[in-house]
């Protein structure tokens, strides 16, 4: 090889190695199957003050974080009601909300949830919530899909 080509070739080889190395890297988050937080089953239901029976929820269910102060939560509410009609079990987690406001919101708009948990932010933290509304589709305790923002029909039609 000509002497004056050695350094450019060396540089190209180093760059190519770096590109190949990074393209082959996958993050832990992509490979790891995340489980739903145990706090969901360690927090009592707001209405009956009992812990949720994991087995009674079945293999497939949905966890939806919402709040009465959250407008997009209201926008997706009809879809949640539709899901309830179709027999899909939804655990509602009321995120950092005033109790009276939350009760009023449920009374006014209807309750699509099988169970409702009141959360001061701890469950949200464990689940990696970014903001409400946020919906998790769970199969055998594993989070299959996470929707940030309001649900749209396309997000749920496969489950209907």
């Amino acid at each position, binding site marked *: 090889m000509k002497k004056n080509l050695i350094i450019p070739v060396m540089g190209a080889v180093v760059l190519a190695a770096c590109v190949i190395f990074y393209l082959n890297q996958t993050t832990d988050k992509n490979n790891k199957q995340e489980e739903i937080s145990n706090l969901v089953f360690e927090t009592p239901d707001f209405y009956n003050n009992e812990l949720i029976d994991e087995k009674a929820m079945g293999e497939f269910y949905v966890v939806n974080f919402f709040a009465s102060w959250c407008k997009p939560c209201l926008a997706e509410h009809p879809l949640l009601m539709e899901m309830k009609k179709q027999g899909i079990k939804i655990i509602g987690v009321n995120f950092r909300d005033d109790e009276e406001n939350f009760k009023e919101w449920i009374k006014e708009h209807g309750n699509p949830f099988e169970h409702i948990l009141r959360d001061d932010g701890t469950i949200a933290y*464990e689940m990696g919530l970014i903001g409400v509304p946020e919906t998790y589709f769970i199969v055998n305790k594993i989070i299959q899909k996470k929707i940030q923002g309001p649900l749209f029909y396309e997000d749920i039609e496969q489950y209907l």
Partner: protein
Amino acid sequence: MKISNNIYKLIITILIIHMSTISFAGVNELSDYYKTIRCLVCEGQSIQESDTEFAINLKEQIQKKYSSGMTVNEIDAELVKIYGEEISFNPQKNHYLLWGTPLIILFIIFIFIRNKIKFFKKT
């Protein structure tokens, strides 16, 4: 008597300053740490600056964990595990290739220029 009084006052003053630094050490450490955590709602801001519910909740959760005895490093590791590397403004330390590649390229360019200069000097 005056000297011993002054010494007594000096000791008390030092003790008070020392105790005040102890009580604020935790707050300062957390406050500095919040500045390294990205708000995932307003991604240009840290959770220290952001007033989103996400940032407020995260600060509260971190405060709880810190008060329960977790170190900042342990809390940081947990946050990265839950939210991913993007939660931290400080990149993970094992990106040696990422940080080293510009240096490698600079070194190669330096060798290249040095060889060129040597060549021109010879001619």
